[in-house]
């Protein structure tokens, strides 16, 4: 290392807050001495994952050096996921995993759960020093991009990537990869495809090929997506990202049997991914493979004890499996356990209450089933009606079982109205009606609900054209109250509000209203084209 570089590194390390996490006293001391000798001053240590979490919460660390195996409690990977998910560490922070062997999750996981680097043991001081220097330099070069991404300024992030790409940096691939991710996120699929193809023209790298598959998936060419993901896996069976996307594709094609096979294979290779085990449980349940669903859900609960991916849906899922296996007592126990684990989370409580109602109903205890459903309705009110479509459909299913057809249909009507242009959701709603032998009613309800939304939107747009802006805005505002999840209503309203600003002047209040709508849609669906258009229009105002 040149003297200059060494000086900059020492200066940077001197300022940095550094955390060393290792359950082994001897290793902690050794790592600490190494970091100290390289120039670190503000060094804290943790002996366990639990201790580390409280330290990460308290102080914004710049460098974390973490052993992968931490004994009982969360491992290094789970710690990293939790720290990133909860923003305990900033985008510029460096996380180095120290490990005896690299794991699939470490190199094949999603970008947000990968450490910045891993060092295989045994490490010595010189090695640690060079790696630290390189990582700090790399982080600095990605700083602008990561900051833009963090504030969801996707277009800005792409501009930053292009600037870097023009400099022809050593980590060109990394920047291309980040850029392609952003392009996919905001729905610029053609540009993403061109990028992937240009990389693939030089060499068949799995991330680019998988990327091409994602483009096919997003543009609904499922056959092509399936073929591409399968090819990636044939060459590189451990490339989990392709496996996850293949499952997604098969699901979209309705081939849950094949999806289960792919998931089983993936889980065999990376048994400690809670997300995949949960998906396997859900798919096996759909396929009626109750034994496998039970194993998968139980395994999920075990491995996600310390994971940020811990979810009430797993408890509800396992309870349903037990209930269908005619083991209602076990089902109720699982739900009780779930309730303990997820106190103070209305979403989780709602999920549990719905499952409870179904279990009691199957046991023939109508009173208790109704009681649980009443609680679910109450919780739904607390949530302000903001149920995701999956949970709303689950609740409707439970209502059907209780014979409360009207309430079920009302819920499903909202689901359709909030997602009136999603053919997938309509199909799921229809399937639910069919399973209750109410196919015709379902079809009529879906048709009417979609038409209602279309009419309101058309009416709003027509009023706007006639110059009756205020009337149009009022109409769509009212509609939005009924269907708070409808992208179409939000975007049409947004368009009217922009016209209003153009016509009768800007005010902070009006601009804030427009921004809020844009933000809501961006969170729901970053690929919404109208949202990009209106963001540009807003910036031009």
């Amino acid at each position, binding site marked *: 290392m040149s003297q200059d570089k060494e000086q900059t590194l020492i200066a940077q390390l001197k300022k940095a807050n550094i955390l060393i996490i290792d359950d082994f006293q001897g*290793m902690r001391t050794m790592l600490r001495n190494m970091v100290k000798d390289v120039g670190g001053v503000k060094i804290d240590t943790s002996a366990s994952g639990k201790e580390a979490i409280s330290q990460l919460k308290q102080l914004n660390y710049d460098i974390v050096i973490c052993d992968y195996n931490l004994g009982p409690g969360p491992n290094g990977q789970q710690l990293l996921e939790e720290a990133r998910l909860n923003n305990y560490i900033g985008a510029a922070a460096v996380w180095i995993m120290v490990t*005896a062997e*690299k794991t699939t999750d470490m*190199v*094949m996981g999603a970008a947000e759960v990968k450490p910045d680097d891993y060092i295989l*043991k*045994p490490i*010595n001081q010189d*090695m640690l020093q060079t790696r630290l220097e390189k990582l700090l330099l790399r982080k600095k070069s990605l700083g602008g991009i990561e900051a833009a991404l963090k504030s969801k300024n996707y277009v800005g992030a792409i501009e930053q990537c292009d600037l870097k790409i023009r400099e022809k940096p050593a980590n060109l*691939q990394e920047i291309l990869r980040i850029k392609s991710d952003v392009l996919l996120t905001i729905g610029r699929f053609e540009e993403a495809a061109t990028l992937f193809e240009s990389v693939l023209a030089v060499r068949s790298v799995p991330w680019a090929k998988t990327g091409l598959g994602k483009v096919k998936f997003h543009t609904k060419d499922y056959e092509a997506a399936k073929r591409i993901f399968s090819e990636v896996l044939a060459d590189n069976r451990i490339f989990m990202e392709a496996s996850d996307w293949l499952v997604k594709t098969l699901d979209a094609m309705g081939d849950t049997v094949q999806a289960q096979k792919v998931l089983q294979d993936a889980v065999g290779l990376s048994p400690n991914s809670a997300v995949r085990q949960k998906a396997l449980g859900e798919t096996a349940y759909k396929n009626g493979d109750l034994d496998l669903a039970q194993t998968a859900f139980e395994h999920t609960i075990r491995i996600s004890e310390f994971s940020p991916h811990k979810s009430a849906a797993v408890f509800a899922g396992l309870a349903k499996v037990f209930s269908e296996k005619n083991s209602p007592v076990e089902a109720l126990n699982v739900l009780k356990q779930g309730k303990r684990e997820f106190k103070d989370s209305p979403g989780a409580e709602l999920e549990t209450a719905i499952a409870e109602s179904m279990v009691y109903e199957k046991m023939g205890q109508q009173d208790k089933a109704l009681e649980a459903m009443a609680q679910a309705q109450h919780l739904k009110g607390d949530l302000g009606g903001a149920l995701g479509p999956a949970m709303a459909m689950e609740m409707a299913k439970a209502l059907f079982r209780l014979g409360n057809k009207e309430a079920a249909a009302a819920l499903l009507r909202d689901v359709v109205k909030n997602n009136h242009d999603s053919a997938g959701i309509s199909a799921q709603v229809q399937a639910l009606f069919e399973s209750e032998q109410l196919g015709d009613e379902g079809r009529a309800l879906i048709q009417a609900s979609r038409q209602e939304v279309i009419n309101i939107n058309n009416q709003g747009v027509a009023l706007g054209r006639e110059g009756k802006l205020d009337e149009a805005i009022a109409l769509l505002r009212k509609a939005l109250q009924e269907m708070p999840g409808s992208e179409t209503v939000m975007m049409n309203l947004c368009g009217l509000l922009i016209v209003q600003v153009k016509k009768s002047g800007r005010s902070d209040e009006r601009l804030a209203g427009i921004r809020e709508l844009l933000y809501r849609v961006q969170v729901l669906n970053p690929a919404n084209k109208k949202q990009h258009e209106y963001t540009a229009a807003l910036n031009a105002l």
Partner: protein
Amino acid sequence: MPQDEISFTDFIASSIHDMKNSLMMQVHALESVAAECRQKGDLETVQKLGGVLYEASRMNSSLIQLLGIYKFDKAIYPMDVVEHSLADVIAEAVMQNTSNLNFKGLKITTECDPDLYWYFDRDLVSGMLLNALNNAYNYTKSRIHIVARQVNGMLELRVEDDGRGYPASMLSNNSMGANKGIHFSKGSTGLGFHFVSRAARMHKNGGTCGSLAIENGGQWGGGCFIVRLP
């Protein structure tokens, strides 16, 4: 976790983890003892420690290889082929071996364009280099020469020494991939060659895959250990 769910992989991984921790502590302790001795002028002990450190490095190399081969066989090795700087990877491999190379007073030279980047799995190539360096350490007289360059569209990675070179019996059957018919001199289990040749073959591009070759000659007429990657 119930007994029957602890798989052999978990055992191997966790044992190796444990062994590597021990190894790391040992090496660290030995290095500080050696530093003390050097200060006191006890060069005889320093010399002895050098041999011990070399054995530790060999043990580490074997652990890497065992775990690697196990994962190749099970098709669970997380192959991660991305672009790396050859100069960086070589520098790190040398760095990892600095102490035992210094003890023997060996001189290492590297010939590599700083702008040479190639697609490979970093850990596998580090493992191959470590193995080659350990071998060269054993057979060389005074120096080791590492070369990385592009030849006919392939990456060529050479580790050359100035020792007596490989015996004719090994060279006559230069299909290291099959690894048959090679009579290893005592102390060698064949693990290293097997690992390197498997690791090289894990690297594929288009229709070609990587390979291992050995020959005598190179810069100083000693043994040459050559890995080619597509």
